[in-house]
């Protein structure tokens, strides 16, 4: 282990990121108000039950769509297969809460579906025959369509690397296509599928926008309510603790399964590009139909709904301060990307140079921030700042720092930093994993210092990773809702918060315009990254 500037740099970054996580853990031992008793006797069971139902429903649907689509585009040729390969990830551009607005807007009484039926068949009482996708079903559908992409991307990458030999072996043994799927293809892609589903589970449990829109009480909304309605920060943190334990278990499972996934990497001699099966006739049409349906429901439907409302209510479009919202969003995106990339580099290089096991464990712990719902992070951050201000700052009789961190851009970016640190850190780390250590050592041996090696060898080599991380962080920041909602400065709005505020006031038509812009900007970023996300060696 080598203790130097890089070691301390990395240590400080990891500790900073770990603070909110530690805050949640320590809050477990604090006293709470009697809200806990009230809650225990009333809603706690409902929170847990709803969280579980939501989780199971979303896992089932995302498995079906993610694995199904990945299987079709990986093993078969049918019209549009190359288009679907990347178009299916566009669903990431639609956050669950915007999907929820679309779903409600389309199927509600006198909603879009009603208008379509009326214009086609004339006046009538169609409201009774239009199904209603609200409540739990609406939440499950909204979350599933929005995030099935995790399962799709990881499973597809795993299918890509499945050895042709393995599939040929199945054919040799006389397996049918179905038997090959269940006995060979799915079991060997299991780690990737589990990894995808774990991400889905984490996102589902931490979802705030969609469930609160549909009025579903889950643990996440419970945390928000205990803080907002009952002003009980300690209990909010304790609830967070339970959720965090659950999420950390999933996170460990996901981590474990990712490690196993390495067994599926191709060996130099063993990998052979798979020959896809050409589908013809009905089978080809059915495959095309399945992918079209998923693409339509996950992306085209919410996009069209938002576009439709923007067109028929042009006043909302004209009233929206687009320039300000865009500038605010870009400000947050740029600051967050810069901060995250800069500190991820320090952390990764510090780990690489020092080779400290302690630092490695601390970094692994600190990246679990991604598993913590935004609501929890924001609450934990406020808790920490309040404690810091009341004890440390007060002790030295300095001026209060609450205003510097709470309700400020700085605080917002700091919490984004914790939330998306895993994304940035792992993105840079995966780039670093491709640089053999002997490259660094060669640089030292031709006289390069640590800093010169970093600047002249690593940074230029990792420029693609930097770009990818910047885009992924931007995508997340644009879609992010609860942290922005809780910690944003007064009168500072983004597309996401504007859409949420309109929607929470039942002004869905007005929410459509910022939602549409959010989808379009996010789609633009997805298209920029699709080359990397779908890269065949991306497992």
């Amino acid at each position, binding site marked *: 282990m080598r203790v130097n500037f890089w070691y301390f740099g990395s240590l400080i970054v990891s500790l900073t990121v770990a603070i909110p996580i530690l805050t949640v853990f320590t809050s477990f031992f604090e006293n709470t108000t009697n809200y806990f008793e009230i809650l225990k006797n009333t809603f706690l069971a409902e929170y847990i039950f709803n969280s579980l139902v939501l989780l199971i429903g979303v896992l089932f649907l995302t498995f079906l769509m993610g694995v199904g689509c990945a299987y079709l585009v990986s093993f078969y040729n049918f019209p549009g297969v190359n288009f679907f390969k990347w178009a299916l990830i566009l669903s990431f551009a639609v956050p669950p809460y915007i999907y929820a607005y679309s779903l409600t807007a389309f199927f509600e009484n006198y909603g879009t579906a009603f208008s379509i039926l009326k214009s086609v068949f004339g006046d009538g009482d169609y409201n009774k025959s239009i199904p209603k996708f609200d409540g739990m079903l609406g939440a499950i559908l909204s979350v599933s369509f929005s995030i099935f992409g995790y399962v799709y991307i990881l499973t597809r990458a795993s299918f890509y690397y499945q050895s042709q030999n393995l599939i040929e072996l199945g054919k040799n043994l006389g397996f049918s296509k179905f038997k090959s799927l269940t006995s060979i293809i799915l079991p060997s892609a299991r780690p990737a599928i589990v990894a995808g589903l774990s991400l889905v589970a984490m996102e589902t449990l931490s979802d705030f926008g969609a469930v609160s829109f549909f009025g579903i009480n889950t643990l996440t909304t419970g945390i928000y309510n205990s803080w907002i309605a009952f002003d009980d920060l300690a209990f909010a943190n304790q609830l967070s603790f339970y959720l965090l334990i659950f999420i950390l278990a999933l996170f460990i499972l996901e981590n474990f399964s990712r490690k196993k996934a390495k067994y599926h990497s191709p060996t130099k001699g063993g990998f052979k590009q798979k020959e896809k099966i050409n589908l013809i006739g009905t089978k080809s049409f059915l495959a095309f139909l399945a992918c079209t349906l998923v693409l339509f429901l996950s992306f085209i439907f919410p996009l069209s709904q938002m576009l439709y409302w923007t067109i028929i209510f042009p006043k909302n479009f004209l009233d929206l301060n687009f320039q300000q919202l865009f500038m605010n969003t870009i400000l947050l995106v740029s600051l967050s990307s810069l901060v995250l990339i800069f500190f991820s580099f320090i952390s990764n290089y510090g780990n690489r140079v020092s080779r400290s096991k302690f630092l490695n464990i601390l970094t692994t712990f600190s990246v679990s921030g991604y598993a913590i719902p935004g609501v929890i992070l924001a609450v934990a951050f406020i808790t920490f700042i309040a404690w810091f201000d009341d004890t440390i700052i007060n002790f030295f009789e300095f001026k209060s720092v609450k205003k510097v961190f709470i309700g400020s851009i700085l605080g917002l970016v700091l919490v984004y930093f914790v939330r998306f640190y895993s994304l940035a850190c792992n993105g840079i780390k995966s780039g670093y994993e491709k640089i*053999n250590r*002997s490259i660094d*050592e*060669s640089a*030292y*041996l*031709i*006289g*390069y210092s640590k800093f010169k090696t970093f600047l002249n060898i690593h940074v230029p*080599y990792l420029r693609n990773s930097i770009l990818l991380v910047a885009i992924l962080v931007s995508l997340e920041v644009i879609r992010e809702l609860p942290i922005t909602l809780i910690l944003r400065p007064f009168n500072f709005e983004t597309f996401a918060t504007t859409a949420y505020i309109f929607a929470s006031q039942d002004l869905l038509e007005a929410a459509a315009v910022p939602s549409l812009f959010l989808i379009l900007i996010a789609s633009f970023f997805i298209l920029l990254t699709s080359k990397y996300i779908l890269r065949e060696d991306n497992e």
Partner: protein
Amino acid sequence: MSKNYLEIKNVNFIAGGNNKVKNVSFSIEKKGDIVCLLGPSGVGKTTILRTIAGLEKIETGTIKLKDNILSSEKCHVEPEDRNISMSFQENSLFPHYTIEKNIYLGAERKNLNKKKKINPKKIIKLLNIEKILDKFPHQISAGEAQRASLARSLVAQPELLLLDEPLSNVDQSFKEEIQVQLKQILKDLKITTIIVTHDSYEAFYLGNKCGLILDQKLKQFDDPYNVYHFPNCIEVVNFLNRGILIPAKVTGENSLENIDLGTIKGNFTKHYPKGSNVQLLLQPEDLEHDDKSNLKLEVVDRKFRGTNFIYTLKTRNELYVPVFVHSHHVHQHEVDEKFGIKRPIYIDHIVCF
């Protein structure tokens, strides 16, 4: 003040917290000398190079170059400040630079001691890598990458050059040619070099001295001739695998007796009292073939090595004895045939354990 160019004294070489090679001492006397380290895979040869380069630290002993301490318990000069170059076994070229840029980066190193400047173009030509200069590391073969890495290390003209299996990925047909040229360049530029290899022929050809690392120890450090003909322990004999040990009894000042081969005469490298039971090292070139001899052994295997054959013969007591025969010998012997051994057997230097 030490008169050695490089001196390694009582060093425990450590990698990943584990002792790899213990209590090693050896030195390179003159600038421009070449030392080859031999040993099986995983024994710690690379760790020795990495430690000398400054990539690993030491807890005991000292490493001195030109009388300056590079590593000791208290002192550690960083690799970038040592003026030591190392060529790694695996590809260590900078992936985002062309091969040419990679090589010329080596020449950027500040070296005030450069009297005779090396011409990178000459090195490039010697290593036959002119055609790949515009390519990137991922576009070339492992052998080409290894040669490019070697070129980068050479053009740096370091005070000490460390080569880790420098030619392991190079085609056999090209290997001998490079070995000749490499030796010439190192000699011309007087670059002091330590080469790690598992190829004993490469070590014997390139090295002024050879060190054998076995069982976590430096077992022998000597001239190549001595390492081959006067191995100092059974482990070295087994590692070089160039002979067998057969039981024998010392019968006089210059003779010993084996139950199957009879009397063997020659000069003992070490004194053994008459009547001692010893293990005699018998190398393929120690026995001579003679069709007319009455000492006949059964052929159990025949290896064709181009310039020669090595026959493996079985004795009555099931000893398997190797015998070297020039490949232009008038006739060949098939497996199961009888093979005559010239008597009396005379071995110029008798090595026993």
